[in-house]
């Protein structure tokens, strides 16, 4: 199966650079603003889009993404509205891959078959579901593959060589390497260690490996991008949304520029990495 994700990483390989993968939360700070952010991200340098599905109890997320989810839920976000956002995005962009990321319960309650059908129809390319390890593949991973969606698995510093094959089986699109043991937005990973870990994963797979959790600045993104196929930036972008909100927490177009300005700087960092490495 070659989908938008495979095509995008093949293109980037030709260009000889890593991908900037952005994470923003669907419905944060409200539906309209989050869609405007989504639509503006590819032009600001996002190569792959991750869109968070808000959940009340995100057990792998730090305070920034927790708060983003709660802002979205407070503004009335739900799965149907998230799919509407994806459709809206797809109307203007048929090439940038879009991956939904979140936790299982809202999907389970929406209904797995209905979720997969609606996701595919809306133009979703892949899924990252934090609390579905390979041990629970029959829940969503296998049905998702059947429905033609990539199921992107997290590999972590605790995933040793013995376990890696288990994690990589049934994974497609790319592998998401969680650079730290910890929650999103926490301690910054050491670029050298990350590069070694990515190399270790690459000994087991030909899939692209993107690195996330804890990457916050352009310089940092650049250092990580030198040794990986992509860098995922989430907490920093979501934090930019929060900071753009006035004291009354009213959403405005300022949120869109806050996110795109940061994305542009991060993209420059990521794009500069290989050039710098070659020079």
């Amino acid at each position, binding site marked *: 199966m070659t989908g938008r994700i495979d095509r995008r990483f093949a293109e980037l390989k030709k260009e000889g650079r890593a991908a900037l993968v952005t994470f923003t939360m669907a419905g944060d700070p409200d539906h309209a603003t989050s869609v405007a952010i989504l639509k503006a991200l590819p032009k600001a340098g996002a190569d792959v889009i991750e869109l968070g599905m808000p959940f009340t109890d995100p057990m792998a997320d730090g305070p920034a993404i*927790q708060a983003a989810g709660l802002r979205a839920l407070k503004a009335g976000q739900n799965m149907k509205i998230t799919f509407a956002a994806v459709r809206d995005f797809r109307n203007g962009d048929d090439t940038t891959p879009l991956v939904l990321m979140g936790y299982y319960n809202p999907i389970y309650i929406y209904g797995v078959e209905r979720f997969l059908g609606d996701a595919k129809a809306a133009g979703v390319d892949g899924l990252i579901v934090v*609390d579905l390890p390979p041990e629970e593949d029959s829940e969503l991973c296998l049905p998702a593959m059947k429905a033609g969606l990539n199921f992107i698995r*997290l590999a972590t510093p605790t995933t040793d060589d013995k376990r890696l094959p288990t994690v990589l089986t049934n994974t497609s699109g790319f592998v998401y390497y969680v650079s730290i*043991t910890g*929650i999103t937005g926490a301690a910054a990973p050491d670029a050298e260690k990350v590069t070694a870990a990515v190399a270790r994963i690459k000994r087991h797979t030909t899939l692209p490996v993107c690195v996330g959790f804890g990457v916050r600045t352009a310089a940092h993104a650049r250092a990580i991008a030198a040794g990986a196929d992509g860098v995922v930036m989430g907490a920093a972008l979501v934090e930019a949304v929060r900071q753009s909100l006035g004291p009354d927490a009213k959403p405005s177009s300022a949120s869109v520029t806050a996110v795109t300005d940061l994305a542009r700087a991060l993209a420059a960092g990521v794009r500069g990495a290989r050039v710098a490495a070659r020079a």
Partner: protein
Amino acid sequence: MTVQQLNSFRTGPDEHGHFGIYGGRFVAETLMPLVLELEKAYAAAKVDPNFKKEMDGYLTHYVGRPSPLYFAERLTRHCNGAKIYLKREELNHTGAHKVNNVLGQILLARRMGKNRIIAETGAGMHGVATATLCARFGLECIVYMGAVDVERQKANVFRMNMLGAKVVPVESGAKTLKDAMNEALRDWVTNVESTFYCIGTIAGPHPYPMMVRDFQSIIGRETREQMQAAEGRLPDSLIACIGGGSNAMGLFHPFLDDNDIEIYGVEAAGHGLKTGMHAASIAGGRPGVLHGNRTYLLMNEDGQINEAHSISAGLDYPGIGPEHSWLHDVGRVTFLSATDDEALHAFALLSKLEGIIPALEPAHAIAKVLELAARKPKDHLMVVNLSGRGDKDLDTVSRHLGSKAR
């Protein structure tokens, strides 16, 4: 629902940690290797005679087991029906059943070479038990507790501090038990090498629901022997309150295959089931996935978890252990609920009739005993798990009863 004819209700979980459709291992990949390591370590400990010997020694000399099975004569007379026995878990060291489980997990943590222990707590009894055993074995102890619970269970916060534990107030969500568990999981994901997560009830990913049940089952095993000794036969009914369900499962499990015995779990109905302000996941929830397992949960139509409400911090949780969900579906256990007001009434009544001040959690079970016992014949033997003592709740109760009097 009719009781399904199964050969045994005691064979679960399967190797994937499932009780029917419930249970499982819904955790982030970072935790998955740890969960598998724990499963292996527990399986080895379970069959190691030295582990059992060590457990038994501490249960006898440190915890003070067996806990008495006490005939509550005046409560029985008051109800004018079934003969009521109290399983006195409140007499254990630290004042609740929680210590049975914590002892097992701490001894296991030592075997695994983990020296940093984390726990979540609602009422603070599990936190106190964890802090106590960490003090006993010289382990670092961090307890996550919702900020609301820190406020309403101050005495236990002080006890934990006294025992050398660090209590971290959790400010996210409803600031109660669910949020404390989220925060403990976030800590575990961060400190994987050194840390053992000591879960306080039969929830979490496999093997926790099974392991905590096994450690708590001493309650039911003792009850079988003690009732035989007292009455020459087994009881006719069992009843216990349900937070996550560990004290209840501890009492129930050894009796699940005695099909004539009626078994009742009592959830917290808070302000009343109809108000939506309650913590009764079986009565008011449906199956979903949270904190590592599939089980009945309180949630909205989008699968977002609702906040639970109960006067009792230990029952203030929007879920229930997966094995209870299964026992509900197959019809082996009947789930009832008691409101805040019913629990308060039972709290005061048991104190006056028996000279035993119960915790607010088992006061919910006592509240339903008052109804059930009255309808049973005089030769019906009923056992209620008195899971903890009420010292920690005196502030809360005096505030509520005081405001009613005014």
